[in-house]
């Protein structure tokens, strides 16, 4: 029923064979050319944006130009704390850490619940029959719709944000882990049983490793949702973090801070995704070799 995201995403992160095989001079040159090609579009956008502005703003004074955004970010990041005139001065790192901390907590919960749950649902027809319908019923409710519920239950506190992040991250993790566990080659399981593996051995030593590629796909999707959830809940229900600053700055007309905040969120999302990809590459080393030899 929900294979579409799992399948299409699963195919994507395989590295090209060339990456594994050669490290020649031509390879390095190709790499720097690729890097150049990647930064070209952002440079064009920033330049056009700068040139379109007049007196440091555009769109009738609503949007600040890049240099203003940069100045606002420098002040936000490195300015002295506690200046009455600029409440954001020097608070960037604190707010980044607030948001990242909530994402880390919520995402950890989502993993701890989602991976075992998905494996069990994929492995056992009984568990699947008992749990899967409930998950499929709750899953279409967007995490934003859970906001009032979360505030009512947890109040204006960290727990509310962590709850939303955990919930949002849980669904893609559980769905992909379920698929991974369900698609295990039957002969792998038979071979393990024939060698004397208990049902638990099969789960831990065959089903889990076999499901890992799908699980990592779920983790990457889940992490994206976790960042959405933290921003949404900080905008509404918590008084700190990048989401809180985003909404607060908008309210007092500081669009330069708003844009600096948006870019900070993007950078954090990218950074955390790279972190997962790095772990994935290490854990799934065997798979890289497989694609390289084929």
């Amino acid at each position, binding site marked *: 029923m929900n294979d579409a995201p799992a399948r299409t995403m699963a195919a994507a992160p395989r590295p090209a064979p060339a990456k594994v095989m050669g490290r020649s001079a031509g390879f390095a040159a190709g790499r720097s050319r690729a890097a150049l090609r990647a930064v070209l579009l952002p440079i064009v956008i920033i330049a056009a944006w700068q040139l379109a502005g007049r007196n440091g703003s555009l769109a009738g004074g609503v949007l600040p130009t890049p240099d203003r955004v940069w100045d606002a970010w420098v002040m936000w990041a490195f300015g002295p704390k506690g200046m009455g005139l600029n409440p954001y001065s020097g608070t960037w790192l604190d707010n980044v850490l607030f948001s990242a901390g909530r994402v880390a907590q919520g995402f950890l919960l989502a993993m701890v619940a989602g991976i075992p749950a998905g494996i069990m649902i994929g492995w056992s027809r009984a568990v699947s029959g008992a749990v899967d319908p409930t998950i499929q019923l709750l899953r279409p409710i967007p995490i934003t719709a859970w906001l009032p519920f979360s505030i009512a239950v947890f109040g204006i506190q960290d727990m509310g944000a962590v709850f939303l992040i955990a919930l949002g991250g849980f669904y893609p993790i559980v769905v992909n882990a379920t698929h991974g566990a369900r698609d295990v*080659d039957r002969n792998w399981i038979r071979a393990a049983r024939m060698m004397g593996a208990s049902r638990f051995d099969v789960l831990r030593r065959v089903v889990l490793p076999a499901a890992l590629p799908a699980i990592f796909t779920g983790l990457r999707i889940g992490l994206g949702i976790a960042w959405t959830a933290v921003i949404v809940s900080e905008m509404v229900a918590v008084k700190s973090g990048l989401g809180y600053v985003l909404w607060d700055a908008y309210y007092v007309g500081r669009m330069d801070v708003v844009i600096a905040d948006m870019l900070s969120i993007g950078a954090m999302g990218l950074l955390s995704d790279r972190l997962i990809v790095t772990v994935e590459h290490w854990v799934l080393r065997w798979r890289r*070799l*497989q694609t390289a030899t084929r």
Partner: protein
Amino acid sequence: MGTIRFREVGKTYPGKEPVVALDRVNLEIGEGEFVALLGPSGCGKSTLLNLVAGFEDMTSGTLSFNGGAVSSPGPERAVVFQEAALLPWLTVAQNIAFGPSVQRKARAEYEPKIRELLRLVGLERFADALPSQLSGGMRQRVGIARALVMDPKALLMDEPFGALDAQTRMSMHQLLLDVWQSLGTTVLFVTHDIDEAILLADRICIMSARPGRITHEIAVELRRPRSVDQLTDPAFIRHKAEIMAEMRAAQKEHA
């Protein structure tokens, strides 16, 4: 120690249109005997082997291994799969060690044995390679080593060399003959290759399809120890002619 006995065994796969895969099969395999199951595709060879392995439950009759009922898979009945079915995230040595390790055996006990088996199947240099880095024949040799490390009482092989080229097959045949001649394990070997069946087996059971049944049994009179050179032996040719006539007759009956 490694006796297998089928008594009036039937197996029907349930479904909208139930498939009768085996119908009243009677078969007795003695200790240390090498029996080949020969028959056309879909006649129930894998089904029969999977019953002994404990992968499937039978519908009727009785099946015993060493006098006891077969209820689940176990290391005393080691299976060699057609596509080897190695775990792709484990190295060659780890794949072979999987059995002893899930049986909670001491590492010091099985490690020397694994090294010895790697030498036996000619893969010492590939202990740390992943299955995907091996050729089909090498993978199958790992599959055999993985089975032998458990000291099985019976080896169940389902077209283990079916996907290999002729030359690799021949070297695998020699390897299997050598191993079996030194260990004396009971072997149930599924194939649809007549030459392979004659070369390896003491006895050949010919099956027919729909319903799956053993129609003939032929005792192979080729001297032991055998080698692949016997493919041109007059006795070999005689057996081959006999089996081909048998199979042709079976086919006519169904047409």
